[in-house]
């Protein structure tokens, strides 16, 4: 091409045809690079499966919500890399519920009527789940929660609500009683917050330890507004062998510090739930007293010596290091014990949708029935926490629990893993009999 021709091909803005081609190619390259990597071309044109994530971005559950969102995003990325659901990409639509049941209900309504999601999912705090569930049922919106509360399995909700990704608290409590009774002691004193969460522990653990031939010597209920706990410790009987605590909320650091001051070096065995110290570095100076005590963990925060390949891959995908902190910021501690439920629930949704041949909202009934046809989940990348049994009548999964001992520097080492059977309980609840 002559220089003249080349000049003739110059546009009014002075850019030559060759340059335009180069720019076009560059633009296309940039567009491809900037598009989500998990959006394979094969289904780029197909309508996505919309999953509404009702998460605690603000409010008391924000530290959980932050990690739940990261976990959910990582799971969606992987699902899309694997081809999506029924050949369609998955789109995660996140809305903040403010850890408030009123706002939570509004968010569910928004999902159902504005975003037109296929499934709502993700919620942790019990009061948000319980407050939102009636509307999920009335809007006929499948609602897969990651709460660990007993409210789903208790039968008080409805057929549209499932908790397949994490064991409920009743099962967690009773599965650990045999080990506590055999290894820590049979005379237990319980300190718990004086509201529903604490009362569940009080009722279910008291029965479970009695079934093991143990007894609860004293029940110490602490009002939720309490900021100092020193006046409660003298109520702990001298012959207490195990102190069982489930304190939650902002006062928990004070609770641990004052407990240390009360007991000094001579203390009973101490067993607690990690819930209150999720997203908290156990190496925090105020928590030194916890060394040598035990905690329940759903999924062990620290990578253990027998870590599975699936746990390694899951940590890498979510961005968590071997000590349970963010890879990007070691001070940002994850809610590792619980957040696997977000990951696993999404893979369960995928499994049920594929089983139902889910295509559109018209298939929601088939999706619910497919969820209710699931029986078990094998350990794998989709279920890194471990295998689980799913009870379709209760809409609830049952899995393994971990008891970990706090070592030097706050490192948690698993000393016992319960069997699934340890946590199974009888129930008359049957959601499958409810109308859809």
């Amino acid at each position, binding site marked *: 091409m002559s220089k003249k021709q080349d000049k003739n091909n110059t546009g009014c803005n002075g850019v030559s045809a060759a340059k335009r081609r180069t720019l076009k190619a560059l633009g296309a390259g940039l567009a491809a690079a900037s598009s989500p990597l998990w959006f394979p071309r094969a289904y780029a044109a197909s309508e996505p499966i919309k999953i509404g994530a009702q998460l605690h*971005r*603000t409010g008391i559950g924000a530290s959980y919500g932050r990690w739940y969102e990261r976990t959910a995003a990582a799971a969606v990325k992987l699902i899309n890399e694997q081809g999506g659901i029924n050949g369609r990409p998955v789109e995660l639509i996140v*809305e*903040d519920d403010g850890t*408030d*049941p*009123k706002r939570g*209900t*509004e968010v569910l*309504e*928004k999902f159902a*009527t*504005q975003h037109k999601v296929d499934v709502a999912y993700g919620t942790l705090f*019990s*009061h948000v789940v*319980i*407050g939102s*569930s*009636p*509307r999920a049922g*009335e809007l006929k919106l499948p609602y897969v929660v990651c709460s660990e*509360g007993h*409210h789903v399995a208790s039968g*008080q*909700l409805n057929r549209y609500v499932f908790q397949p990704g994490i064991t409920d608290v009743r099962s967690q409590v009773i599965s650990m009683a045999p080990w506590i009774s055999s290894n820590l002691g049979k005379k237990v004193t319980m300190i718990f917050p*004086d*509201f*529903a*969460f604490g*009362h569940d522990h009080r009722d279910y653990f008291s029965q479970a330890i009695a079934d093991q031939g143990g007894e609860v010597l004293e029940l110490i209920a602490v*009002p*939720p*507004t309490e900021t100092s706990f020193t006046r409660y410790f003298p109520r702990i009987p001298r012959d207490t062998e195990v102190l069982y605590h489930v304190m939650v909320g902002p006062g928990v650091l004070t609770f641990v510090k004052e407990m240390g001051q009360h007991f000094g070096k001579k203390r009973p065995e101490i067993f607690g739930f990690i819930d209150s110290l999720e997203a908290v570095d156990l190496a925090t100076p105020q928590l030194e007293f916890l060394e040598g005590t035990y905690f329940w963990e759903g999924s062990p925060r620290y990578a253990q010596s027998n870590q599975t390949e699936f746990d390694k891959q899951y940590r890498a995908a979510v961005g968590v290091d071997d000590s349970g902190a963010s890879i990007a910021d070691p001070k940002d501690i994850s809610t590792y014990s619980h957040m696997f439920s977000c990951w696993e629930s999404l893979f369960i949704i995928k499994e049920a949708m594929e089983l139902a041949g889910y295509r559109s909202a018209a298939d929601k009934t088939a999706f619910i029935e497919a969820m209710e046809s699931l029986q078990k989940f094998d350990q794998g990348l989709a279920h890194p926490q471990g295998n689980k049994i799913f009870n379709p009548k209760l809409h609830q999964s049952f899995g393994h629990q971990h008891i970990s001992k706090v070592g030097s520097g706050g490192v948690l080492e698993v000393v016992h893993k319960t069997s699934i059977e340890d946590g199974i309980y009888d129930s008359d609840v049957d959601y499958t009999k409810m109308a859809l």
Partner: protein
Amino acid sequence: MSNGLKSAVLHTAVVVGFLLLQYVLPEYHLLSVTRIMLLAVFAMGFNLLFGYTGLLSLGHAMFFSAGMYGAGLSVYHLGWSVPTAFIFGILCGALLGFLIGLIALRTTGVAFMIVTLMFAKVTYLVIVYFTQYTRGDEGLVMPAESRSFDLFGMHFSLTDSVTRYNLALGLLALTMFIVFLLVRGRFGRSLIAIRENESRTKMLGYNTFFIKLKALTVSAALSALSGSAYALMFAYIGSSFANIQYSIDPLLYSLLGGAGTILGPVFGTFTMFYLIDIASEYTSAYLLVTGIVLVILVLYFPRGVFGAIRQNFCRWLP
């Protein structure tokens, strides 16, 4: 046209506007406006005490939750019908308002704010303490049989969004009518007199304690009406509704829309609801956005939107 007639026409037009809105609103907004109307009833009840009487309560969540728990618990534990439970919820709020008033109205100003705040905290803790009945922080889901009822030969399904919308509209119109009658009558003028100068009102021979007690009881009853309807329409009761946040909300709605006006709290509730809803789509700091809006409002419209309209254009606005 007299001022009274102008006011009546305007308020009727607002109710008709809400009535017509349901034919054009998409479903999500139909659901949202239903909530807004119920919360506006709460705000109007609050405003009767705050805007017209000059008493700033920081504990109105206790009246809202008295209605909510009065209705909800009677349905859940006693199996009462929806209309009976609804009226019982209102009575619970009115009774609580009367009893609290007997004590709290012995104080004024900041002390009144602190006393009402304290009683609200007590109400919250009572709900949490009696977990075996209330399920405390977790709350209770209303049973399926309470999701519909028959009244005057008609069947109402509370799962139907249009039915709920119209019931909420009916309650909004009723509250507006009650407040309209109250504030435009002798009672309303005595409330304003107390707000402007209680000592002078007392000197003129009015029993200001009794008038304030009456205002607080009506205000509590309207707040309880809102709570009672909220529990029955959305099938959930929980202690979080007794939190301080739910005492502050009607204050913000009234300040935004215009304290001491009937339509102000309705406008404030509507605006605040959508401000939060829209801002939360873009940022998790949505409360900061609403805070900034409120600061701007206080700086430039200290009487709220309808307060400014009344001051500058329509002095006849009640």
